[in-house]
């Protein structure tokens, strides 16, 4: 990996202190700095303040999106050194992108923060626990598929052999740093990785609903107008049973690559299993490239852009060489990162491939609603609330699709929670590096989960682990579940012919 990174750095080169438009940013001496056209979009209106989780907790301008963007600009123009002040400002940020939803000028705050982190971590390398987390998790473990598999196996052994119970009984878990201790308790039973266990290609189980609908349309007599309405989320949400209509130029994917992710595949392999089943159930051939790697989101968030880029290049190759029509991902954080490969590799020779790759990426809920899915007939009798993962709602703008999937499930009652799109505090490794803020946000999130909800659905593994640990801590028995896993349950209830409790 280290070699790949060095080679990449040498190749990409970059022009220190210069942005892509060739303008000087004297304060940022390293390649790939925050872009002036991005931060100059900010007019300092402040409409982002009241949606920013860290500003709401602390009330400090320094911890608001507007404040951060302003400081990035000051640093770029050489009025603020790359020191602890800027470090604190850009690393307190959860990178939740709620501000991007609120911003009327379209300032890409997430992109600016990530690029600024890339500058400050080079000027002042991390220390202490953060450094430990970054060295072990981000660089030592996650980029290496085989090590990750071995770690998962160890974790499974730990859980299955009774060691976990023993460790807890002997209070050995007290030796863990507090944030890890809480997450350890919330860890689900680790299953075996889908990426390793499943064959690379899995055919569709039946023709897709869309294909059947198209066949029906083709068979029907032509009526007047040729134009058909495009697929719309609203239409799908209001009438999920209706066959979606297609524009002629709209290519319906057939061969779908599944991005398994690292956290998802280690801790929530069952969600990957559900995703594969749901896709095959809906008529898609599934491909799981064995050589896919971590998406690199955690690295880019931590300012380690070069590792992020190396991982991105590996994924370009893994998926584009398989000639898939679409790349489906069930982890919001990974999905957002994959969709942003074009930006990440903007100064890279691979830019065009990265853009082609990014265009194929869909969150699983987005994919199903957009290209059509068969509404299940199996019932899931449960009251469910929905938590909007930041990287789904804010970074990818996907809000209605997951709800449409949930509403399509017979027997399921969807109740909305207040502040559904407010960050839960997980934010990649944020809950490890900023436990105090993460705790405050988690308490707020758990308090917002309605009492009547038997389950809380969401589309991101980090949120799942975080919210599960918060509910456990609060002594609540609400189940944490991935949206697509509920859909899978409903499909399976059809064949079992009986209702399933969540």
């Amino acid at each position, binding site marked *: 990996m280290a070699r790949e990174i060095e080679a990449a750095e040498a190749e990409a080169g970059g022009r220190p202190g210069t942005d892509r438009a060739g303008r000087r940013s004297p304060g940022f001496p390293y390649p790939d700095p925050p872009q002036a056209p991005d931060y*100059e*979009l*900010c*007019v*300092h*209106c*402040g*409409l*982002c*303040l*009241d*949606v920013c989780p860290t*500003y709401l907790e602390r*009330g*400090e*301008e*320094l911890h*608001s999106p507007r*404040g951060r963007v*302003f*400081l990035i600009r*000051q640093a770029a*123009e*050489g*009025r*603020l*050194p790359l*020191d*602890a*002040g*800027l470090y*604190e*400002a850009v690393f307190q940020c959860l990178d939740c992108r709620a501000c991007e939803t*609120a*911003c*009327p*000028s*379209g*300032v890409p705050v997430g992109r600016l923060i990530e690029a600024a982190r890339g500058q400050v971590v080079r000027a002042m390398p991390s220390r202490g626990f953060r450094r430990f987390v970054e060295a072990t998790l981000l660089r030592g473990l996650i980029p290496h598929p085989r090590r990750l598999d071995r770690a998962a196996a160890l974790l499974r052994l730990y859980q299955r052999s009774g060691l976990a119970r023993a460790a807890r009984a002997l209070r050995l878990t007290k030796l863990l740093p507090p944030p890890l201790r809480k997450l350890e308790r919330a860890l689900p039973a680790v299953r075996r990785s889908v990426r390793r266990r499943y064959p690379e290609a899995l055919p569709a189980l039946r023709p897709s609903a869309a294909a059947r609908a198209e066949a029906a349309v083709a068979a029907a007599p032509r009526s007047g107008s040729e134009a058909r309405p495009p697929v719309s989320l609203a239409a799908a949400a209001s009438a999920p049973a209706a066959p979606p209509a297609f524009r002629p130029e709209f290519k319906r994917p057939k061969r779908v690559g599944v991005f398994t992710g690292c956290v998802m595949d280690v801790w929530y392999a069952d969600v990957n299993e559900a995703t594969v089943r749901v896709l095959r159930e809906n008529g898609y051939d599934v491909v799981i490239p064995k050589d896919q790697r971590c998406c690199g989101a955690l690295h880019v968030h931590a300012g380690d852009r070069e590792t992020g880029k190396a991982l991105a290049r590996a994924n370009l190759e893994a998926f584009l060489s398989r000639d898939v029509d679409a790349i489906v991902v069930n982890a919001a954080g990974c999905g957002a990162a994959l969709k942003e490969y074009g930006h990440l590799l903007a100064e890279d020779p691979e830019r065009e491939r990265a853009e082609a790759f990014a265009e194929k990426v869909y969150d699983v809920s987005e994919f199903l609603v957009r290209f059509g899915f068969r509404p299940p007939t199996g019932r899931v009798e449960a009251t469910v609330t929905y938590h909007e993962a930041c990287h789904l709602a804010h970074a990818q703008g996907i809000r209605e699709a997951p709800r449409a999937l949930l509403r399509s499930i017979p027997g399921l009652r969807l109740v909305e929670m207040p502040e559904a799109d407010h960050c839960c505090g997980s934010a990649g490794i944020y809950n490890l590096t900023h436990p105090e803020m993460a705790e405050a946000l988690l308490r707020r999130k758990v308090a917002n989960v309605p009492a009547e909800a038997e389950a809380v659905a969401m589309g991101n593994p980090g949120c799942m682990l975080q919210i599960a640990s918060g509910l456990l801590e609060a002594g609540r028995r609400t189940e944490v579940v991935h949206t697509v896993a509920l859909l899978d349950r409903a499909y399976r209830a059809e064949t079992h012919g009986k209702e399933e409790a969540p």
Partner: protein
Amino acid sequence: MIESRVAADAWRREGAALPGPEEDFPPPLPRAVAAAIRSIVGERFFLEDPASLLAYACDGQTLICRPPRAVVLPATTEEVAAVVRLLYDAGIPYLPRGAGTGLSGGAVPLNGEVVLSLARMKRILHVDPVNRLAVVQPGVVNLRLSQAVASEGLYFAPDPSSQYACTVGGNVGENAGGAHCLKYGVTTNHVLALRVVLPDGEVVDLGGPPGTPGPDLVGLWTGSEGTLGIVTELTVRLLPLPEGRRTALAYFDTVDAASRTVADIMAAGIVPAALEMMDAVAIEGVERGKKPAGHPPDVEALLLIEVDGVEAGLDAEMERIVAVCRKNGVRSVKVAESEAERRLWWDNRKTAFAAMGAISPNYLVQDGVIPLSTLPDVLRRIRAIGEKYGLRIANVFHAGDGNLHPLILYDGRVPGEAERAEAAGLEALRVCVEVGGSITGEHGVGIEKREAMCFMFDPPELEAMRAVRAAFDPKGLLNAAKLIPTPGRCGEVKAAAWEG
């Protein structure tokens, strides 16, 4: 004062009025004062590191920015009072700040003031649905107050476009208006009582139930732009949510036709809840911004018209409005068919200022008021001003009450353009005053329009204002650089800009 203008010019010319890390920051507070403040509010709520100070250098106005000496985030009236007393005794200037969304620079520490941020004081203390009032802390966000009382069928009427973020305390400071103030009045009509920390740290309660005898001190405070004292608790009036609403969107081929329609609607005796106008440049901006509403690209003006109240009669009222639009040659007019459609139109309108960032690197918002009858004439004159200075001017404004918002678009990187924009803005305000209007409708005077005060008031009138301020703040420590021009300045301003 003049120094500040020089600094502002430098910032514009070189983008460098903000100090570097080593230079030009105001001196740190004396150590004893800093320690005493820390012991009052707690270590983490006293900020003096360079990054934090820089973050408080601007508010919603960015032409003139200066970092404060320190930032304090008190949590209670007692903490505010204790900090203020300390600063008063030490003779150290200070000023209050809410969300920092103000557009006239009212929260900019021009003299390196200590900033007292009220952002942590955001509790709704009491809601009385029967008497329709709420007691709140100043840091409560405007929209959150309305959301919190919606379950009681109530809302807080002032609705500035920044209501997603601005605070109720700031609304009082600026006497904020908003789209629906045409029918419901501005902030001053909705404040019943205030708890105030006076410039020497004394805590007083002003106002009370409607009809409280004595001079209207609450009225004096509302719109005083944080120069008389720091509001730490407010009792505000809540209104019942209207039973029904109708919202229409009308497109016009000429600005004149749209302005005539506005005048005709008002002359017909209709009182819309809101009557908003955008011209072609503004429409281009909002359609390129984050909340496009699908306005056609070739219309010259649009009106967003809303009526609300008792359900019965709303349709008839809207029909009359549509008829007035037709009479004036409207291209098309549409009544919102769903709440989602209405929401889209309003989101599009309310984010209009910031959306100008999408079509121009910089812009300057002006805020003037004119008699309604002069609207077509004034809009023509503003267009001529734009042509004269070679700058595009977008108009987004509360047409119904004649509250104009010309947005002067410029590129701060082009030498001289910021100055031309400022001159164009000042000339637009001059037109407002000439036709019998005012230099501000709702954004306040702050730093930005302090000199335009000279257009509206004679020296004796300004002297009276200074005397009122001095009665409360004899040491001149509280946000002293704002609102009222210093004596003698008006002579220079008039010589340079008015007669010149």
